[in-house]
């Protein structure tokens, strides 16, 4: 009895001590792999079994192999469906017929006993045990011990599974945090950069760093065309063509998804050949203004939904900065143009006479209204010896600074040549040749110039292609001053210029003008016309010169009705007292 009782006391204790140790070891760890491997090895050791495996529930009826011994490596990470798994052990000894698909897997790997792993949450997994070395069945006490070992580890397994899930959640949080950080950092940095090339550079760095691709192409939509602006992939002609079609992509897409859309099928085939894995549109207000083509991820794995969302945000952020940079450049350009126009206007105004000379027996007035774009209008009145005066009006082709500079040339030539011993046709021919040799025939000047002898009231003039000045006689008959020749600067002088002569009488009015006057437009785009101008001038015959200038201006303003004029307007009026 004594012996029996001792032995019966001893027997459980010899089992209990290792059990206690085992429980301590298993429960002090949160490393799932270690726990499962300890459970498996302990059971296998106690039962003298050479095969075993542990499966954990993934979701629903799906179980994944997480630990296995003696059954070969290929079984690792296998996922199988088990429909009928109760809370009690299942013996697979002497099974002749198939017990259904659920168990075929275990039978294939020669498992003999399936032990459910139970926690408060229910069955979380299953332990599979192979045949005992002795080929004996598992006895009732074997089963009891196995059940104890599994039960003792159940809460540790449960804990470890949660820790693992937390780790995964933590890591995906870390990844999200990292992505947000990248977006935040770049939005800050992009705002500082006003150079689209630098934005693209930063963008590619972030692509390389965050996603780990090193085959990419960045395209921007420029003047109606998707242009590859940065790339690290082979740029075949078909790639350039493909990106034109891809401009229609509205959402980030994998190449394999593009292949399923009929309109992108052909392009997707090109992309696959070029090892492009994903296409990300870069959008401003839902308009695709750019594209990113991305190759394989170097770390392996395919693009996740999260990756695509991140890339889409990144691309949109970049394209906004690129758009801003472009707008900034445009504004800068506009400012530069305005600055240039201001200079042109200053040059032009500097060339016009500040004061008109007093001419005895005559009444003189002039005005120049420069348009927004600054045309090349010019007029001049110069004093010559012997009561003679030069009156000139001209118009240079083109606008802005180039026109203003050419006009300055003409003025210099005129001022130099007029007092010299040249005849007017000779002087005009010289001006033509100078202009032609300076501009090589791509800029022209219309010029009317006359020399008035104030004592004899006699006018000699040359009209080089300028709008014919009006001479309204005191009796309101109208003459036009047309003698002269070809526009200045068109070709070297071949045919000499002609000189016109006329004698002025009291009450006569001479009206010089540029085409900005006769071609002033109303809101229907219709010219004021020389006919209308003539009518106005007839009405004004006998008025003071300054009144004529003012009244014509008023008439034109009334006609134009506020339509902005694109050309300068210049008038010079000489009235004989």
């Amino acid at each position: 009895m004594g012996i029996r009782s001792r032995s019966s006391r001893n027997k459980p204790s010899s089992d209990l001590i290792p059990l206690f140790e085992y429980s301590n070891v298993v429960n002090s760890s949160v490393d799932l792999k270690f726990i499962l491997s300890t459970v498996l090895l302990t059971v296998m050791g106690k039962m003298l079994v050479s095969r075993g495996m542990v499966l954990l529930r993934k979701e629903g009826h799906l179980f994944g192999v997480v630990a296995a011994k003696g059954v070969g490596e290929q079984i690792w990470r296998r996922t199988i469906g088990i429909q009928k798994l109760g809370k009690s052990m299942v013996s697979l000894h002497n099974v002749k017929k198939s017990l259904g698909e659920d168990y075929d897997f275990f039978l294939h790997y020669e498992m003999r006993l399936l032990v459910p792993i139970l926690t408060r949450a229910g069955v979380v997994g299953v332990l599979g045990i192979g045949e005992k070395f002795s080929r004996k069945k598992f006895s009732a006490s074997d089963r009891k011990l196995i059940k104890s070992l599994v039960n003792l580890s159940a809460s540790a397994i449960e804990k470890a599974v949660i820790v693992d899930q937390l780790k995964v959640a933590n890591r995906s949080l870390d990844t999200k945090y990292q992505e947000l950080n990248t977006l935040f950092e770049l939005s800050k940095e992009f705002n500082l950069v006003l150079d689209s090339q630098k934005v693209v550079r930063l963008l590619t760095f972030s692509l390389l760093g965050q996603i780990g691709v090193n085959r990419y192409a960045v395209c921007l939509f420029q003047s109606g065309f998707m242009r590859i602006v940065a790339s690290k992939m082979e740029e075949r002609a078909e790639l350039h063509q493909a990106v034109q079609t891809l401009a229609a992509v509205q959402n980030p897409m994998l190449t394999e998804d593009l292949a399923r859309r009929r309109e992108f099928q052909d392009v997707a085939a090109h992309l696959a050949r070029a090892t492009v894995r994903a296409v990300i549109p870069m959008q401003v207000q839902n308009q695709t203004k750019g594209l990113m083509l991305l190759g394989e991820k170097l770390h392996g794995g395919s693009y996740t939904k999260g990756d695509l969302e991140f890339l889409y945000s990144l691309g949109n952020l970049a394209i906004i900065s690129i758009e801003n940079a472009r707008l900034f450049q445009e504004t800068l350009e506009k400012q530069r143009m305005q600055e240039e126009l201001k200079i042109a206007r200053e040059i032009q105004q500097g060339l016009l006479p500040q004061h008109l000379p007093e001419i005895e027996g005559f009444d003189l007035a002039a005005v120049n209204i420069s348009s927004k774009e600054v045309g090349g209008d010019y007029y001049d009145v110069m004093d010559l010896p012997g009561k003679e005066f030069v009156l000139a009006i001209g118009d240079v082709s083109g606008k802005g600074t180039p026109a203003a500079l050419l006009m300055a040339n003409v003025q210099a030539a005129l001022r130099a040549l007029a007092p010299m011993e040249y005849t007017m046709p000779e002087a005009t021919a010289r001006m033509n040749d100078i202009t032609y040799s300076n501009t090589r025939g791509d800029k022209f000047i219309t010029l009317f110039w006359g020399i008035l002898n104030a004592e004899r009231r006699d006018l000699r003039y040359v009209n080089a292609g300028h709008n014919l000045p009006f001479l309204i006689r005191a009796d309101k008959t109208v003459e036009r001053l047309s003698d002269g020749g070809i526009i200045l600067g068109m070709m070297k002088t071949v045919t000499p210029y002609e000189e016109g002569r006329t004698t002025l009488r009291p009450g006569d009015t001479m009206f010089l003008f540029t085409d900005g006057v006769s071609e002033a437009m109303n809101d229907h785009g219709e010219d004021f016309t020389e006919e209308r101008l003539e009518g106005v001038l007839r009405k004004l015959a006998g008025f003071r010169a300054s009144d004529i200038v003012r009244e014509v201006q008023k008439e034109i303003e009334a006609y134009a009705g506020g339509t902005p004029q694109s050309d300068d307007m210049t008038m010079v009026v000489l009235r004989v007292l």
Partner: protein
Amino acid sequence: MSEFKVHHRDGEGFSVIELKGYLDAHTAPDLESTFQRLLGDRKFNIVVNCKDLTYISSAGLGVFMAYIEDVRKNKGDIKLSNMSPKVYNVFDLLGFPILYEIYKDEQEAINKFRQHGKKI
């Protein structure tokens, strides 16, 4: 403005780049120009010592990615060393330990280049 410094020194058959401070989109071009210079001088055995690197963003990592291919094509490598746990975490998150050799200290990385050199 974040503080960042790149310092580079040459050893026998290798170059060491020391990084200090914040490596982000703003400072990435500094590191880039150092790599450009080294590659221009045909120095392809590069150890990047991250001892004083306090922060790295994905744009910073992008610089390593941008040059690794050229370096390896020329039978060299970019090896990293002396990373703080915080910086390592970013490398790890973005999957860089698969692509780059990362060593505890600079000497270990240099020794790797030496061993490799002997083999050749």
